[in-house]
């Protein structure tokens, strides 16, 4: 009888340890995910998207500054000055300074310009 009680007690202790470890594991996993979520939350930034989202192939917006330069390019008279701006446009386009391709925008603005005239 005494031996049976002792065995029961051992079993209970074993069970308790198992449940205790399981609880600790659950809490640890939860803490890890809570920390991860807050870390991910703090890096939220609009403007720094994945390359695939901001690439020129998918971008549907406009570049105000590129258009201003193109308007200047079209308005200017001297061949030398025109060549200078064109050189700048090509160099800046290569450096990906514009949100949209300069050549295509130039063609688009030029055709709109000609249509208006």
């Amino acid at each position, binding site marked *: 009888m005494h031996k049976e009680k002792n065995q029961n007690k051992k079993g209970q202790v074993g069970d308790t340890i198992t449940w205790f470890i399981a609880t600790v594991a659950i809490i640890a996993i939860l803490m890890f995910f809570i920390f991860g979520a807050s870390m991910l939350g703090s890096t939220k930034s609009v403007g720094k998207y994945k390359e695939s989202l901001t690439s020129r192939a998918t971008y549907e917006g406009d570049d105000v500054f590129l258009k201003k330069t193109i308007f200047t390019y079209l*308005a200017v008279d001297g061949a030398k000055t025109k060549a200078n701006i064109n050189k700048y446009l090509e160099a800046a386009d290569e450096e990906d300074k514009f949100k949209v391709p300069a050549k295509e925008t130039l063609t688009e603005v030029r055709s709109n310009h000609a249509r208006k005239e």
Partner: protein
Amino acid sequence: MSLQKNKKGADKLISIYWFMILTIIAGGVVMMVNGYYSSPYDVREVEGDIFASKLANCIYPAGTANPNFVSVQGIIKPEFIENFESHCKLNIEPEGEFEKAQYYAKITFYRTEKKKSEEQVIEIGNKNFLVDCKSKDTSKNLATCVENEFWMMFPGDRLKFVTVLTAIGKTDQNA
């Protein structure tokens, strides 16, 4: 009989345990969602871009220099610079009495795109942010700076290369 009672007691205890675990997990999920969504989106880069385009549109709308900004002789009017904010319909003043301005803009006019010699500079807002713009550190505790450039034609067919540097502070809201 005694064994059956024991089993009932153990079942009750386990039910309480599971209820506690459920509560802890539910609390954890709430904390995760709160932790992710409570932190603000940093929109300063986009804001800086919008601010810069507003400034550019003010001085050079639709490919011609603003006549209120530049005289027929191609000289930038000092009166326009003095009241730049009101002329360009900008409101960059801080809301509170003891708060500092959260915006800064510097428009620089150069002769060429090589940016060798500054011909004229217009500055508005909190000049302290200029230091943040020169820093290579990308910490959220610093202002976010955006620089844009374009060619501008002044009256008399004189060309100027213009750079528009904008800085948005708002570090308290984003850090």
